[in-house]
């Protein structure tokens, strides 16, 4: 088994997959803590469906670079979702459900009507579950992913204390002169970027798992914002690495394998937390 792995690891496409997987797992877990604590996790879910719809449109239009279309559309929807959550008559959660289900349905409809591909259900399946796209990354896609990931991490580190303040107590932060709306916008935009990047790794249906599971697992065991953030990042990266390696050896779909590892980690953390509580 080790030998099989060693052989595979020499292929550039496997190396690319590992690099991109680790970067995406890192970014999604960092923002995941804020998202879960701000009760924003449903926005992540809604946006991933929007990204699917956008991907379908990009496919129909035969765009050479899907990302150039999918990225702006998803970011725009992130901004819209945040605005509707605040003031309008349609309640935030209902608006998100409408947009996400609408995007999913229209995306599939468009693919069905206009796709020239002979293997439609295969295309849909790989967009939804990301089955093989991570293994077909080009070098330029890897670079794009690396640059955006570094940007996300830098933004997170620079605004770490501001994000904490905005997440813990919006009113207090606003009274202290922090531009809370601007930071909420920043969070939504960063999440949109991460979701589009993560589509390659786990597909649009499973992205929320990548964002939510590591944060929830870390919150079972750790009790400070900093330790939760660090644990969530380390856990997410380890699960992604392990998941990709398992999927190569066992020839399982990459995305669902990573999510399965994340679920196992969550169960393990919950168990440890329960045992620790009983001992006290």
């Amino acid at each position, binding site marked *: 088994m080790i030998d099989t792995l060693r052989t595979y690891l020499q292929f550039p496409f496997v190396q690319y997959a590992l690099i991109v997987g680790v970067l995406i797992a890192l970014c999604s877990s960092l923002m995941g803590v804020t998202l879960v*604590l*701000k*009760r924003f996790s449903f926005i992540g879910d809604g946006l991933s469906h929007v990204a699917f719809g956008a991907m379908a449109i990009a496919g129909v239009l035969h765009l050479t670079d899907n990302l150039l279309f999918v990225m702006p559309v998803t970011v725009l929807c992130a901004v819209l979702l945040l605005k509707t959550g605040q003031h309008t008559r349609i309640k935030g959660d209902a608006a998100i459900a409408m947009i996400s289900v609408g995007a999913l349905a229209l995306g599939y409809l468009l693919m069905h009507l206009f796709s020239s591909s002979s293997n439609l259900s295969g295309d849909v399946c790989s967009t939804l579950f990301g089955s093989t796209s991570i293994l077909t990354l080009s070098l330029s896609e890897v670079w794009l992913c690396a640059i955006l990931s570094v940007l996300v991490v830098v933004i997170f*580190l*620079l*605004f*770490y*204390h*501001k994000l*904490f*303040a905005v*997440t*813990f*107590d919006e*009113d*207090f*932060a*606003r*009274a*202290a*002169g*922090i531009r809370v709306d601007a930071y909420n916008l920043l969070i939504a935009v960063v999440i949109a970027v991460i979701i589009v990047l993560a589509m390659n790794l786990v597909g649009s249906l499973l992205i929320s798992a990548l964002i939510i599971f590591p944060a929830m697992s870390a*919150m079972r065991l*750790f*009790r*400070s*914002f*900093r*330790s*939760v953030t660090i644990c969530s990042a380390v856990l997410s990266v380890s699960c992604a690495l392990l998941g990709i390696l398992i999927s190569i050896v066992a020839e399982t779909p990459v995305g669902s394998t990573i999510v399965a590892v994340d679920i196992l980690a969550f169960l393990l953390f919950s168990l440890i937390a329960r045992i620790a509580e009983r001992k006290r």
Partner: protein
Amino acid sequence: MALLTCDHLTLGYEGRAVLSDLSFEVQAGDYLCVVGENGSGKTTLMKTILGLQKPLSGRIVFGDGLRQNEIGYLPQQTLVQRDFPATVREIVLSGCQARMGRRPFYSREEKALAGKHMERMNLLPLQNSCYRDLSGGQQQRVLLARALCATRKLLVLDEPVSGLDPRVTAEMYALIRSLNQTDGVTIMMISHDLAAAVQEAGSILHVGEEVFFGTRDSYLQSAMARRFLPAEGGQPA
């Protein structure tokens, strides 16, 4: 000049006034209690003073070099905070946000300031404990220490004793009193507990259909107090 002057304020949401034509002043060193029934606009008034919402008309003037973002604010607890993974130290430090401006990290002075206020609130032994594991009284002291990091002059407290048991409530009132008397911090407290308000505060602002603003003694003489306060030694009217 007064620390805070509210000049013919009309407050409310979406054009519907909750409170109209309200004028009062807070001098440095005052202990003002804002009382009134639920829905009388106490919290709206506080949010307007903090700059979280705009008055429908009228104006608020800050004096003595106080800026709006230098008010220490003790909010009512929200559901989100109850299960939030954060240590006492992380939360108290976040009170320094206003003085940080755009700087991304806390300076040594800010850490020292947080340490000082944690000591004042008797929180040093708890500084690495998780906020959600603390008792209600301890949690309020954490939020009070955070508010102190944000201000040198004026604390605005929204129902600081709600949900606390009688003993902890008494401790909380004593702590607020000593902040006012020993540390010279101006206090503006919102409360629905009228009996405690007239015991603790130096002046009273009673909002509702009728408005009273004045010292505690003149409030106790007023017809309004007689209607809302139970008679001395007797039963509530």
